[in-house]
């Protein structure tokens, strides 16, 4: 398990606006990585969720270590996004429990949680009328007091993020006039401004072309390397998921089919069972992670 203790911001490390300030000192003591309880950052323990009597998640069980990139894959309607909603605490499980940093999700005050857990959603920001810079600054909300002030002036951080994501020329533009890729970059900027230790990705690449998909995941990968960020990602594209994640969880109809490294999860049998397709699976010529092509449907 990689345990990177570098708390510097990616921007500073990437040679952007140098920002010699220790962010970790800002946060409340229990969340300091040095003090935080050992053990996984996220522990999902036999979680069950029902809507109107229909079971959408049933006995899900896994743990995510600090610094890991963990992927959740499965067919449409398998409960992936629900699982993410339970981890981020916007919904509560009906059975089992989810521990963040050793404590149940509901025990973390929302604002405190937002200082180290951020979510990048499928649909990009819709804050009509606000500028790109306004939206990125919204990421500082959990650190601001009642008057909207922070201990340190966040503008160097915001400038650094805008530069890093090549959003600086767009900073004064209204978000409703942006392209899909620019919107998603703005959303990423907002999430980076939160300076999280845990990032949840809810199919953030769905509406992006392959170039923007690769760019987005590449930026997040760099961000991980620089800060030791932990990522839990729901990804539609199995090949992207296998390339991006250290371990994968495969679910279908709310049931867990497999957890493990991509080699153990993206296999012919499991993929056939989950998606009802006949896949051709081969190692990526450069990295060796399993990649998948459609063979034919099983009834052909």
């Amino acid at each position, binding site marked *: 398990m990689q345990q990177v203790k570098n708390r510097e911001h990616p921007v500073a490390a990437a040679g952007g606006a140098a920002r010699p300030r220790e962010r970790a000192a800002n946060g409340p003591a229990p969340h300091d990585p040095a003090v935080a309880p050992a053990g996984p950052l996220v522990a999902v323990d036999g979680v069950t969720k029902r809507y109107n009597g229909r079971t959408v998640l049933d006995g899900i069980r896994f743990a995510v270590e600090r610094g890991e990139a963990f992927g959740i894959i499965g067919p449409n309607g398998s409960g992936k996004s629900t699982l993410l909603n339970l981890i981020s605490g916007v919904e509560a499980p009906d059975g089992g429990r989810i521990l963040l940093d050793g404590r149940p999700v509901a025990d973390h005050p929302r604002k405190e949680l937002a200082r180290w857990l951020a979510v990048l959603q499928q649909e990009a920001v*819709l804050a009509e009328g606000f500028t790109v810079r306004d939206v990125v600054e919204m990421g500082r909300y959990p650190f601001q007091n009642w008057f909207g002030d922070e201990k340190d002036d966040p503008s160097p951080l915001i400038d650094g993020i805008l530069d890093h994501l090549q959003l600086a020329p767009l900073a004064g533009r209204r978000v409703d006039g942006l392209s899909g890729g620019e919107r998603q970059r703005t959303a990423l900027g907002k999430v980076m401004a939160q300076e999280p230790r845990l990032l949840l990705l809810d199919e953030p690449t769905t509406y992006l072309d392959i170039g923007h998909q690769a760019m987005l995941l590449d930026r997040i990968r760099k961000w991980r390397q620089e800060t030791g960020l932990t990522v839990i990602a729901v990804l539609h594209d199995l090949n992207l998921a296998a390339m991006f994640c250290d371990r994968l969880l495969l679910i279908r109809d709310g049931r867990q089919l497999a957890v493990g490294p991509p080699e153990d999860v993206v296999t012919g049998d499991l993929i056939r069972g989950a998606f009802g397709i006949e896949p051709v699976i081969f190692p990526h010529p450069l990295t060796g992670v399993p990649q998948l092509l459609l063979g034919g449907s099983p009834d052909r």
Partner: protein
Amino acid sequence: MKRPLALWGGAGLALLVLSVTVSLSLGSAKLPLSDVWGVLLSKLPAVGGWLEGGWAESTEQIILKIRLPRVALALLVGACLSLAGAGFQGVLRNPLADPYTLGVASGAAVGAALLIHFGLQAFFLGMWSVPLSAFVFALASLLLVLRLANIQGKYRLETVILSGVVVSAFLSSVVSLLVSFSDRVVNEIVFWLMGSLAMRGWPFALVLLPHLALGAAALLALGRTLNLFALGEKQAAHLGVNVTRTRLAVLVVATLLAAAAVSVAGTIGFVGLVVPHLMRLLAGPDYRVLLPLSALYGGIYVLWADTLARTMLAPAEIPLGVVTAFLGAPFFAWLLRRSKRANGG
């Protein structure tokens, strides 16, 4: 972010002073603007001693006893209604939300009409009973509207407005029923319903003032949080906003503001819809700027509407609600077309 507030706030304050003095000079007795300035300035503690009263005693009486309370009330009612509209629009993320489309005003009208019908205006709490009854009924009808519109925990924009219209229509017929039951007080309810600031005087302004102060303070404190609602409720929650609690707080405060205005002045439409929209066009979507500007310009808007209402067909009065609708509806239609074109629709 604060520049639009200084710019449009400054312009608004200048416009406010101008509007107040012009409105004070207009009426059945035309008073010269210099006299209006003189009377007002002579009442300021610092300058009062320096001025010599070159105006008639009756002029001072008309300005201070008759016109000024009405002007103050117009400003307060306008500020309450547009603040309420801005709050509803922010928290429901619905550009069409306002005290009227949400059924809040009709609820308040039922609450107030019930008291008027039974002649209980001064019962129990004196001046405060009508606003309180209006608030209780307004809140109940808002909860009913939201309950109707709530489909699996989600408020669809169109559904909220649709159920608002349904509940409004029902409540309006309740008021009509009350009106038809009572021959004796029929005129009182009807005139109050159409909206008027006539014959209200200082006591009504003093009832409204604490409502406005409390409501404005509460909404302004939530301005930053309301900005995050523009990202959607889920994203706001991810940024650490307690969505349920904030939504409830804003809805209750906006309802309080709307109910107070309705209980004093009757139903005055389009203020809460038009003014926040206009401010958004001028100064941008930031609620920290939008809320104070809405209060300021809402006051000016109703002041001018009321000035027109009392002067255009003098000595007869046009109901204030009629004037705001005549001014507001075409403006709103223009806004709607403009935003449709801007969205390429």
